[in-house]
């Protein structure tokens, strides 16, 4: 009779570590919202050693301009409540000055330059995935988990970022700047779930935030009034100027270019064209010249743009980009998303080998759109998707330049 055969299997736990969940320390970035609360609760249920961290990013009392309001908003309170209920250690880190330096200042400067920034990307890129991630490492955590709706998958032993299973919740647009090193340490347990499933779990776990609405605004901009924030932080930097039509006619005055975004139609502060009875078509912001404090308006057709230039390009999985581009001659066919709410549009990536660097560098990338797009705003992100059903997030960059046909006509 032979003895029992022991098969030693190296089983990975749900976060991908070959050890018991109880021996796996994971930091969960807890915002106080439903998603990150469920993330923490799921991992606690699976038996992981979970540490909750909430970032104090700005003075809530100052942001809402309520006298006597605590520096910490209701979200921090909620995160503590959830962590307390789960019985996990929870800490609030004061990142106010880091956030101001890395996110808010950039946001304000970008608006003053006539761009339309996305502070959430900067926040993920710096405060969350650089500073918080470093703190998690210092606490000897094995990984950092967030409640983002994206997936982290292996493709032929290469780590990749993929869109969420739930298309309506996909947050990959905000995560294009994730570096391979960061991705290696990150986990997104909600990526394969729908929001409805998350809410059901929140109820199942009896989380005090289960019926909390999703956040809509930029967290430090109450009621979406971003121009107020810019005015408060840079008084004096905002100068009035003129609103000029493409044909040269001055149509009116404005109080500052920060009130305008490329593609904007409503609230321009001017009527239609009164002087020209033949042309009564609606006017759009087609250009912003921050140096001259000029807002340029014109017909929608003038917004058409076929080429987009991206800067600070980041490749999430450089190996996959190299493989894909190795056999293409006149540009790699991809899909590109030029604002969060727009669908990904077919385009060709015109990439030179020396520009495929994955570092947080100055690589500039040209994207040729198959069909012209309207209202592409510099400062937004261009995020590049590929693969089956465009699930794979290759990376992206900041829109530095999106020359419109009008611009080209102007020479």
């Amino acid at each position, binding site marked *: 009779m032979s003895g029992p055969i022991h098969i030693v299997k190296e089983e990975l736990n749900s976060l991908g570590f070959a050890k018991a969940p109880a021996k796996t320390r994971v930091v969960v970035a807890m915002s106080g919202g439903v998603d990150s609360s469920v993330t923490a609760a799921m991992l606690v249920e699976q038996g992981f050693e979970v540490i909750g961290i909430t970032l*104090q990013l700005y003075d809530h009392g100052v942001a809402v301009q309520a006298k006597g309001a605590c*520096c*910490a908003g209701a979200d*921090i309170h909620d995160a503590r409540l959830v962590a307390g209920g789960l019985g996990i*250690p929870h*800490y*609030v*880190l004061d990142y106010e000055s880091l956030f101001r330096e890395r996110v808010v200042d950039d946001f304000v400067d970008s608006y003053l330059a006539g761009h339309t920034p996305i502070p959430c990307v900067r926040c993920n890129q710096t405060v969350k995935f650089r500073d918080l991630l470093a*703190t998690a490492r*210092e606490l000897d955590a094995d990984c950092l988990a967030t409640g983002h709706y994206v997936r982290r998958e292996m493709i032929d032993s290469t780590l990749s970022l993929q869109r969420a299973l739930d298309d309506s919740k996909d947050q990959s647009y905000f995560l294009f700047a994730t570096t391979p090193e960061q991705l290696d340490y990150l986990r997104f347990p909600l990526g394969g779930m729908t929001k409805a499933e998350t809410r059901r779990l929140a109820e199942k776990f009896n989380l005090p935030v289960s019926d909390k609405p999703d956040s809509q605004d930029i967290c430090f901009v109450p009621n979406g009034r971003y121009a107020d924030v810019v005015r408060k932080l840079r008084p004096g930097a905002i100068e009035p100027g003129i609103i000029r039509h493409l044909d040269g006619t001055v149509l009116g005055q404005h109080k500052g270019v920060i009130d305008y975004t490329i593609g904007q139609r409503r609230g321009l502060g001017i009527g239609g064209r009164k002087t020209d009875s033949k042309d009564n078509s609606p006017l759009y912001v087609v250009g912003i010249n921050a140096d001259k404090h000029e807002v340029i308006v014109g017909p929608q057709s003038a917004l058409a743009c076929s080429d987009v230039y991206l800067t600070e390009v980041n490749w999430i999985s450089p190996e996959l980009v190299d493989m894909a581009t190795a056999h293409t001659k006149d540009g790699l066919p991809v899909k590109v998303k030029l604002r969060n709410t727009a669908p990904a549009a077919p385009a060709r990536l015109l990439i030179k080998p020396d520009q495929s660097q994955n570092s947080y560098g100055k690589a500039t990338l040209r994207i040729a759109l198959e069909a012209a797009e309207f209202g592409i705003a510099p400062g937004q992100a261009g995020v590049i998707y590929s693969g089956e059903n465009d699930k794979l997030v290759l990376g992206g960059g900041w829109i530095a330049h999106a020359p419109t046909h009008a611009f080209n006509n102007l020479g």
Partner: protein
Amino acid sequence: MSTAGPVYLDYNATAPLRPEAAEAMMEVSRQPANPSSIHQFGRAARSHMEAARKTIADSLNVQPSALTFTSGGTESNNMVLAGFQTVLASSVEHEAVLAARPEANLINVDKNGVVSLHHLETLLSALSDQDKAGVLVSVMAANNETGVIQPLEDIGFVCRQHKVAFHTDMVQAFGKLEITPEESSIDYLTVSGHKIGAPTGTGAVWCREGRPLSSLLAGGGQEQGRRSGTENLSGICGFAAAARVAQPSTFEQMRLWRDEAEQLIIQHCPKVEIMGVTAARLVNTTCLFLPGLAAQTAIMALDLAGFAVSSGSACSSGKVNPSHVLKAMGRDDAAGQVIRISGGWKTTRQDFYGLAQAVIDLYKRKAN
């Protein structure tokens, strides 16, 4: 986590309830107890309360009749400060003083956080005799962040010479430092119960005969009209029971344990600095400057390793505010890299030793 369970070394924030206090509270809580009631229950309550007043007054070396019960250190300080036109406060006072009178004139401190008598003298000399009638000097007995002790006798002498009132917030020093208001010419003393192992929500203010003290609350005029609101009898009895056993002499051996821990840390991590080390300090407190290590990370890491310490004053959100104490000491360089370790009645030598080892481990691994 250490095998013996988490080690609590944050007594300057609060202390666990002493068994003597718990017992005294339970005893009086079984009966209805409003000391203002005329019936026998009320009379019994009053006699418990007056006995407690006597016990606490004795531990403060003052007369019981001049001792008023309050809800804690913050209320006591606010009461005293509200009675004066002009306040001179040291720049290292607790927020319960500085925020109560944000316009107060600040008295400078030296690099250890000790009040400059010269600066106090200068500030007082600039006042006319007429103005001095409404002046209060407020200097704490010992600092909550560093444990540094102030020269109360010298400060009291200067105040007496200038005929101004002198208040000492002795929330941290209570039960750890012998203070005699007569010798130090102190006019007001404020204390809190929970720092010595009494329940939270208890405190007292002592006021020299003839000095003003009035209630912040309008109401039934309890405590001889000085503090309206039904007295917290069970808390007061717990407070007295804790005060009876919280004797400075019981803390003497802690000096040795604290000093051992400090020496061990310095020996292994020579870059670490002990704040206020050359000044007289409370024996239970050590304030460590860990260059290159963020205090908020250090506190989390120590917590996860089973040691509860703090980094000075935290806001209710848990966010750590920059320390005004270090700033006043001219130590902006240490901002955000300082942790406070403070022992109390349950602390053992092993607690301090274990903490020292944990700090050394952490600092060697993480400081860059």
